[in-house]
């Protein structure tokens, strides 16, 4: 298996799907001549031409609407958001149109479109460029939301997203693009809606997704050294949530910590906790603990930026808390 960077895995998925189906095209700011703001579309313009790799003007609302319209009549657009922070300008087309077309037309329409781009905190970019917006999109019926942590999942989920008959939001990790991992060549599909046990363990479950997975791994290693066996469930898909997998891991370890980068109020993690307490209460030996970003805007100052985000020590502390261990 080849070692690829997360961005290369995405690039491979795009190229393979565009090769496979001429209805697939990519539109976004700087995706063509510039080769992608984060180089996800590197080389695609030369391969597929300017009709399929489309450099859009800085008009998030406009080109998102164009994508949705094209999907309504059977093309399969991939709309790249330079980052999800800017996609806030395109919310109307995503939420009011893409997510609702099928319903409002009584099933006459389908909207097979992918909106993708990086999310999460950048490196010292302050409030407007550092937001984990997963829960915003996960809120809306009619959308699917995926957030891969590894290069292999990134490839497999993007392929699934492009083939899906529904609008799919794919939130990539801005800090993960250069991360390397083994990626199967060719037809590698990760189904939407299936979580993945990334680490087997028996004392406590950590449920997370995207970049936070790596902090959880770091925490798990430390805890392992102290004799605590941690299971890590990577949700991968945030809508629909894999309830089965969430309940199964809790059934196994009887304790859970939910880790997310975004804000606590109405976060995806809140829904995960609700699933556990309403459907898995009898399996719990302790209240579930959440680790989230702090309920403040992101700062530029390095120490503040760090303090706002979850990290391994915070996760370790949370695990000790659900285990009723010292230091919690």
């Amino acid at each position, binding site marked *: 298996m080849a070692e690829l960077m997360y961005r290369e895995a995405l690039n491979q998925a795009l190229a393979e799907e565009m090769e496979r189906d001429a209805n697939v095209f990519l539109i976004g700011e700087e995706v063509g001549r510039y080769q992608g703001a984060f180089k996800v579309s590197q080389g695609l313009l030369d391969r597929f031409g300017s009709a399929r790799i489309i450099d859009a003007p800085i008009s998030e609302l406009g080109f998102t609407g164009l994508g949705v319209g*094209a999907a309504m009549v059977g093309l399969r*657009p991939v709309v790249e958001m330079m980052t999800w922070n800017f996609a806030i300008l395109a919310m109307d087309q995503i939420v009011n149109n893409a997510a609702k077309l099928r319903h409002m037309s009584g*099933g006459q329409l389908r909207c097979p479109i992918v909106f993708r781009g990086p999310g999460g905190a950048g490196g010292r970019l302050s409030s407007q460029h550092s937001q984990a917006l997963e829960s915003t999109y996960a809120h809306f019926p009619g959308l699917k939301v995926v957030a891969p942590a590894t290069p292999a999942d990134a490839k497999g989920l993007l392929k699934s997203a492009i083939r899906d008959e529904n609008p799919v939001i794919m939130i990539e990790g801005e800090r993960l693009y250069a991360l390397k991992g083994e990626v199967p060549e060719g037809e590698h599909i990760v189904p939407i809606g299936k979580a993945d046990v990334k680490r087997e363990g028996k004392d406590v479950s950590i449920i997370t997704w995207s970049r936070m997975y790596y902090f959880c791994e770091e925490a798990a290693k430390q805890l392992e050294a102290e004799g605590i066996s941690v299971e890590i469930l990577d949700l991968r898909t945030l809508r629909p949530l894999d309830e089965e997998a969430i309940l199964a891991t809790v059934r196994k370890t009887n304790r859970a910590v939910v880790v997310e980068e975004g804000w606590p109020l109405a976060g995806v993690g809140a829904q995960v906790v609700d699933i556990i307490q309403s459907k898995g209460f009898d399996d719990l030996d302790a209240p579930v603990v959440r680790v989230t970003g702090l309920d403040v805007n992101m700062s530029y100052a390095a120490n503040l930026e760090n303090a706002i985000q979850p990290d391994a020590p915070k996760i370790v502390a949370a695990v000790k808390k659900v285990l009723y261990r010292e230091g919690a």
Partner: protein
Amino acid sequence: MASKYSKDLLLTMYRKMYLMRRFEERAGQQYGLGKIAGFCHLYIGQEAVAAGVEEAIRPDDYMLSGYRDHAQPLARGSDPGMVMAELFGRTGGYSKGKGGSMHIFDIENHFYGGYGIVGAQIGLAAGMAFASRYRNEDRITVCYFGDAAANQGIFHETLNMAVKWKLPVLYICENNRYGMGTAIARVAAVPEIHKRGQAFNMRHEAVDGMDVLKMYEAVKDAAAYIRAGNGPVLMEANTYRFRGHSMADPATYRTKQEVEDERKNDPIPRLKDYAIAQKLAKEEEFDAIEAQVKEQVDAAVKFADESPEPSLDELWKDTIVEEGEEDVRPRERVLGAKVTNWPKYPSGQELKVTWDLEPREQAEKADKAAGLKR
């Protein structure tokens, strides 16, 4: 001088306008009876626009609109019973009662919906036009929107792209001079909406939207221009709604005199008078059309009234396409009629994309001249 229009064309347009008028009057009445809810934006007064457009384009051209969307599909050939049933919120409606008054979708007749967010359809239309070019089809997309919608950001963002990429789309601003209670001149720096095309190097024109023949001529010309690959057109149809913004609006922001003056311009008698003066049709022929339309509208109301409310398990359908779910369209599902000409979703089929947004040799030449490497 003999009229350059055929009798058939005039009578067809008359029939369509009369259908829209009677349908909307009955819709207003049914709203009063509590059978129709929501806002219910009537089209009364603006019929010449939809009728003129429809006869000037092809039935397979794509079309979309805003929330004032009951009448345009009727001009396309949508089933009045299914439109009325949708207004009633019943199973027999185009969206099985899930879309309602602001969201009429008749995909079989290429009517791609009414939209409740002012201006939102402007972006979608560009995407549909984009798809036509992508697939080398020569169909155009017609997009209706109101004067107030022209102040939305999406209008400006989309026009810019549509011109740059020569998208085959006809934007028709139905300027009825008001957005709800706000006269357009009060909020628009340039109230003549078509002039905004100038900012984008876009062909633009204003048309008397109370004259169906003028609409017909203008759209025929614009459609030919667009179909020939010249890019989009912005057309402003100057029209007037005789009723309030919606059924909830008594329209006290305009004078009785203004409305009375505009009613003298009613496009429906205007066309009838023209056809009779040109000796193309007789009074009796119009009487016959009117009688038929009245029956048609009665039947539509009866159909809607007898159509059941959707069952509660419908709540869980039509949000997400489940894996392997067949592409079954509502008319077939609801009415049991066999539908044969739904447009196919062409995914997976052979498709060669030959269109280039930015011809490669040109781009490479420009790069070379500038000393850049691609």
